[in-house]
């Protein structure tokens, strides 16, 4: 059976092509001058530059963390280029007609049409290519509803008060090594503001694409949901297939004010490297949201790519009666390594959190769940439920679970369930005896295992995620 499954797991990375686009790329290296140049490329105000430089000094004092269950060759931060943008983006195209058709074709090939007529109805897209946002669709329509959805580099100019107030308010500069680096060198990403009592009229989504060789992508996303508002946001990512490792160190901050609700979904499909671990993206990401009174933040992630994933989307449940959720599917195969999970920090009374984590390991990969649930003294009547399931495919892979519970309030209740199972010979044989191909059987079994998480994704993306898993598991790309 192992042979069948190995075959089933061989796959091509569909998004692995390189676009032929002339780019302006900084020479590799990281110093204050580089940061000044990034800032000036974006024509930033002085306060933004100061903020970056301060972060850079903090970062220089910090050490790269080594507590995660991952192994990777040391990153040479001086060998990376920190800025790359298509030349055609230099004089800011005002409409889609002015955007380089090659860029539009790139997104089309990735299944993200940017021409409004062809787009999925009801989904607005911000397309980020290397260090710049190429286009944000449906902007005007959203602004009619008072919703701001624009590249963060624009928001710095157009909404400086909101940016100043909230940037770094959830993930402080010195939070961790990669977050500090991001603060210093972030290039683009999305900015979202939903006004009071507004239900965002469409799904918002950002699609990140790394194209240029030897560049890092340091995106920054900030979503503010004002009181009683509601928004659903999706992030997708891909990169060309290359032998060199590339660094992606993003920071995402969510602010859910009283009674607001943010649903944040990720379908991460960065290039995972080859079977032997050559190439692929190093994905070191800090994602955190803060919930004010009766607010709710729900993280759903489907992680199938990257050579190394280090990622813990978290919730600070500050307001009473606030709710945090984390639904995760992490699939590792070949030589991929994932150390992912969440932190639920309960500060307010009657706060609730739910964690459902599904780890799937195949090949020689390693998949770890790391989760922290903290009940602070003020978290009277708080509750957490954690369910953490691992599925092993074959016998050379590893699944690990690191749950940390800190309860400082005796009335708080923390429940934890964990299971480990295998795609068994019996299951495979049952499927094949009924006429089902082994590849299809594996993907059906894995999809069944992930069902509880997939049902949390917005409809269109649930289908996409299911297909992505299928592609990830299929011998031939369908």
């Amino acid at each position, binding site marked *: *059976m192992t042979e*069948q499954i190995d075959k089933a797991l061989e796959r091509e990375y569909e998004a692995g092509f390189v676009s032929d686009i002339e780019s302006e790329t900084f020479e590799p290296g990281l110093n204050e001058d580089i940061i000044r140049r990034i800032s000036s490329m974006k024509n930033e105000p002085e306060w933004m530059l100061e903020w970056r430089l301060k972060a850079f000094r903090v970062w220089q004092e910090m050490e790269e963390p080594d507590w995660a269950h991952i192994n990777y060759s040391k990153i040479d931060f001086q060998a990376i280029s920190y800025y790359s943008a298509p030349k055609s983006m230099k004089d800011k195209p005002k409409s889609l007609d002015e955007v380089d058709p090659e860029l539009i074709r790139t997104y089309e090939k990735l299944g993200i049409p940017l021409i409004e007529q062809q787009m999925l109805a009801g989904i607005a897209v911000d397309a980020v290519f290397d260090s710049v946002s190429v286009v944000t669709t449906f902007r005007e329509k959203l602004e009619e509803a008072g919703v701001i959805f624009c590249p963060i580099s624009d928001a710095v100019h157009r909404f400086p008060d909101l940016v100043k107030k909230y940037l770094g308010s959830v993930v402080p500069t010195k939070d961790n090594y990669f977050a500090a680096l991001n603060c210093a060198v972030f290039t683009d990403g999305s900015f979202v503001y939903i006004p009071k009592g507004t239900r965002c009229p469409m799904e918002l989504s950002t699609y990140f694409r790394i194209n240029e060789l030897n560049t890092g992508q340091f995106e920054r996303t900030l979503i503010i949901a004002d009181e009683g508002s509601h928004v659903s946001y999706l992030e997708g990512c891909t990169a060309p297939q290359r032998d060199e490792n590339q660094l992606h160190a993003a920071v995402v901050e969510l602010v859910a004010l009283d009674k607001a609700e943010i649903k944040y979904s990720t379908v991460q499909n960065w290039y995972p490297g080859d079977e032997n671990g050559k190439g692929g993206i190093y994905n070191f990401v800090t994602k955190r949201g803060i919930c004010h009174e009766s607010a709710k933040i729900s993280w759903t992630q489907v992680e199938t790519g990257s050579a190394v994933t280090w990622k813990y989307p978290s919730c600070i449940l500050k307001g009473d009666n606030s709710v945090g959720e984390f639904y995760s599917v992490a699939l590792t195969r070949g030589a991929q390594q994932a150390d992912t999970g969440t932190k639920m920090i309960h500060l307010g009374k009657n706060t609730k959190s739910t964690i459902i984590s599904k780890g799937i390991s195949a090949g020689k990969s390693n998949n770890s769940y790391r989760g922290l649930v903290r009940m602070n003294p003020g978290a009277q009547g708080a509750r957490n439920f954690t369910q953490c399931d691992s599925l092993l495919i074959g016998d050379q892979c590893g699944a690990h679970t690191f749950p940390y519970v800190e309860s400082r309030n005796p009335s708080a209740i923390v429940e934890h369930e964990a299971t480990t199972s295998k795609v*068994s*010979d*019996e*299951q495979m*044989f*049952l*499927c*094949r*005896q*009924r*006429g*089902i*191909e*082994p590849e*299809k059987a594996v993907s*059906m*079994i894995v*999809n*069944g*295992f*992930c*069902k*509880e998480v997939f049902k949390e994704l917005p409809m269109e993306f649930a289908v996409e995620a299911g297909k992505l898993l299928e592609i990830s598991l299929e011998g031939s790309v369908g």
Partner: protein
Amino acid sequence: MSNTTSSTENSMLKITDLHASVEEKNILKGLNLDVKPGEVHAIMGPNGAGKSTTGYVLSGREGYTVEQGSALLDGVEILDLEAEDRARAGLFLAFQYPVEIPGVSNLEFLKSSVDAQREARGEEAYTSAEFLKVAKEACKQVNLPLAFLKRGVNEGFSGGEKKRNELMQMILLKPKLCILDETDSGLDIDAMQVVANGVNSQRSPDRSFIIVTHYQRLLDYIKPDFVHVLSDGKIVKSGDASLAKELEAEGYSWIHNEPADELEGDLL
């Protein structure tokens, strides 16, 4: 009496001198069996005789190695086919211990199975609506509530429900040859009757059955054309339905006492 003939013409399944091993242990040691279209053969025999192994070897389960012999299904050698291709050729095995596939709905599983087989025959896949209709019908036929179509494959099913689910799959897949491995064990009389009715309703001139059972009880409801006793990897005695009654009365020990070689000579 013997049902074997020298001709392979018009056999649904013809097994000749089949030797097979598991983990280098010989289990089947020269099995011969000839099943004509429309016939029902019962296989009985002591625990560990190789009854389940026979089903697995025929259906191509990994880990079961064919050492020699052949098995023709409707004239086609199946022993070198992949498991899924044997299924598509019309072989169906109802498992002694059906396995659970959590989170995969029974309906999805059934549709994938049926579509895979239809596709192999060059037929079009069912639309969801069409399939739901046939699936509901099959569900009723085996007396399972329709809610079972939505539940995970065998997930949390009772023993009897699992067996009826196997039968539902058989009804939907319309195989040429059905092997039922102790589908009756663990069932009460009512459930057994449901199984028997299910099988009887599927009997047809172009479908054959091999029914592995410990109890002659089931054979009161499903009248076999032949009864065989399998012991130590080969058939040591064959007869008509009355053999099952004899076995029920006297157990298997009287068979063991007879020299197997002679018997085999007889049968061939």
